[in-house]
């Protein structure tokens, strides 16, 4: 039920209307669910509290083997609820117990702070959490309960209570979103990563992407060196040799000398072509002259497939991002031409909220492999900027590749 778990839209009081009413009824339903989950929380809390001191006897291990996975299930549900209400992911980070036996796992659990946070959550869920979550359904139901009481037992007490309870729906209208938000934030605080763990994860990611980008650029530099050495340099050396020989033959065999010189002229042309292609591989002149939009236009022109462009990117992208984006698009379009057997392709680019989002699509045969070397190379290159690459390519097409690179447009 994805609609049930949409984020809380706003905690500010809003005028009474149908949309607001539906929203609040939804939230109340979620809240009632959260409230009712205090029952298993109490049970599991008791089990856990008993399991720890009885760990010396076999019974503690049995209790733990039941209680801990059940707790994980329960907190997993709460993580999903809190995450859904806040529109974020609330990840878990339990210590790894793979390969540990029935006896080994509880020892890992005992040392795992995240398991202890689960236990703390059980306590919170049965106390403060239950109060927060119980309020919205309670406020909504109070007048109904009192009305029922009045019908069953007509008298002054129920009438007064009912009169008092008439204010409840108003309060319910005003506080429900805020209560839900508060519960979700508190749950995330207990169940989510600690800041340190999040930072550790981040550092790991950064190290990985740094290593990858260093490898990538070292490989690039080697490739450029090879290209120059085997291409332009060799050709120019050959030019020198042939000119030297022609010079030597000029007096004795002018025919042969002229033939050599003709060959030399052709060789200089191909040496220049080599140099041009190396330069294009380093930084395409059109990208230097016209920026990303112009360079992508140039790519599209060279493609045998008609390409529709909708490019809305700022002039001033940071140079490394621009270059990574260009080569990523070049690779994607080359794939379209090579593998897709497409009738048409499209590229859209826009920058929004500090994210440059590029989409390359085609109506070809689909089945593109995101693990292919080309796409993996792009993903690695984008990874250096915390960028992502998502390939959606069902067999039969269409293929859509979405690239996202966070970037703040700042004049560099």
């Amino acid at each position: 039920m994805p609609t049930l778990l949409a984020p809380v839209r706003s905690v500010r009081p809003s005028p009474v209307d149908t949309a607001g009413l539906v929203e609040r009824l939804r939230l109340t339903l979620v809240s009632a669910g959260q409230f009712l989950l205090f029952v298993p929380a109490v049970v599991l809390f008791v089990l856990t509290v008993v399991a720890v001191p009885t760990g010396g006897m076999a019974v503690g291990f049995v209790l733990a083997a039941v209680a801990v996975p059940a707790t994980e299930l329960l907190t997993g549900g709460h993580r999903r609820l809190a995450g859904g209400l806040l529109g974020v992911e609330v990840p878990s980070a339990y210590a790894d117990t793979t390969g540990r036996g029935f006896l080994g796992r509880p020892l890992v659990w005992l040392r795992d702070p995240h398991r202890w946070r689960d236990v703390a959550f059980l306590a919170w869920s049965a106390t403060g959490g239950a109060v927060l979550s119980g309020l919205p359904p309670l406020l909504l139901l109070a007048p109904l309960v009192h009305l029922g009481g009045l019908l069953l037992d007509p008298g002054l007490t129920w009438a007064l209570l009912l009169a008092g309870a008439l204010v409840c729906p108003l309060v319910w209208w005003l506080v429900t979103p805020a209560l839900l938000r508060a519960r979700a934030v508190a749950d995330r605080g207990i169940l989510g990563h600690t800041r340190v763990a999040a930072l550790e994860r981040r550092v790991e990611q950064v190290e990985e992407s740094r290593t990858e980008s260093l490898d990538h650029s070292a490989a690039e530099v080697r490739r450029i060196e090879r290209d120059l050495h085997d291409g332009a340099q060799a050709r120019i050396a050959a030019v020198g040799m042939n000119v030297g020989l022609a010079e030597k033959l000029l007096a004795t065999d002018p025919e042969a000398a002229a033939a050599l010189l003709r060959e030399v002229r052709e060789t200089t042309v191909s040496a220049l072509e080599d140099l041009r292609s190396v330069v294009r591989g380093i930084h395409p002149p059109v990208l230097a002259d016209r920026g990303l939009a112009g360079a992508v236009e140039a790519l599209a022109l060279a493609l045998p497939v008609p390409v529709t462009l909708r490019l809305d990117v700022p002039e001033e992208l940071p140079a490394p991002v621009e270059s990574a984006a260009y080569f990523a698009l070049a690779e994607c379009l080359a794939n379209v031409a090579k593998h897709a057997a497409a009738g048409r392709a499209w590229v859209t680019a826009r920058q929004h909220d500090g994210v440059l989002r590029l989409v390359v699509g085609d109506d070809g045969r689909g089945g593109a492999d995101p693990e292919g070397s080309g796409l993996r190379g792009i993903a690695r290159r984008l990874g250096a900027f915390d960028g992502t690459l998502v390939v959606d390519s069902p067999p039969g097409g269409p293929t859509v590749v979405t690239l996202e690179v966070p970037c703040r447009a700042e004049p560099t």
Partner: protein
Amino acid sequence: MRVVLGEDQALLRVGLTRILEASGCAVLEAAEDAASLERALARPDADLGLVDVRMPPSYTNEGLLAAIAARRARPSFPVLVLSQYVEPLYARDLLADGAGGVGYLLKDRVAEVDGFVAALRRVAAGGTVLDPEVVAGLVGGAGREHPVTRLTPREREVLTLMAEGRSNAAIAGRLQVSEKAVGKHSSAIFTKLDLPQDTDDNRRVLAVLAWLEGGG
């Protein structure tokens, strides 16, 4: 002179073959990778190996290694190594056996056909020919305290030409001075670098280079 050629780039292989043939040398074999080059260098009828430093399969310095291996199998077998870059370290490896009959030149030098063929013949005759770049690299790498810094610019020119394996007469022709003046310069060089005087061109070159290599 019968030459074995090792060069992976077709264009240069053809160019070198033409030049050699126009200069009265026979090309016995033109190898395009390290394995066939090693076989070709082992031919007993070869008078000289002319090899490119970089060869397939790994495109690093197989040509150089093949040349050194060939000299190990046939001591003082003349080898001239060509490269797009000159690396003093490679020069040292080539000269390590101290036997002479070694050349190490930039490919650009081939364009000056007569000079290149002369160098080829000097190597075939057991001389040592090193690219001026090697000497510049060795001298340029010397620290401020290095005795090389005591040489006058003219003496450095003489030293560089000496390393190219030229005789006093040839150096005199190059610098347009008398042979006696070259003799004076070279003895000044040997005195400043504290080296034994030697009249044999090749031994002289080796001594100077060994000294430069060792950093004095």
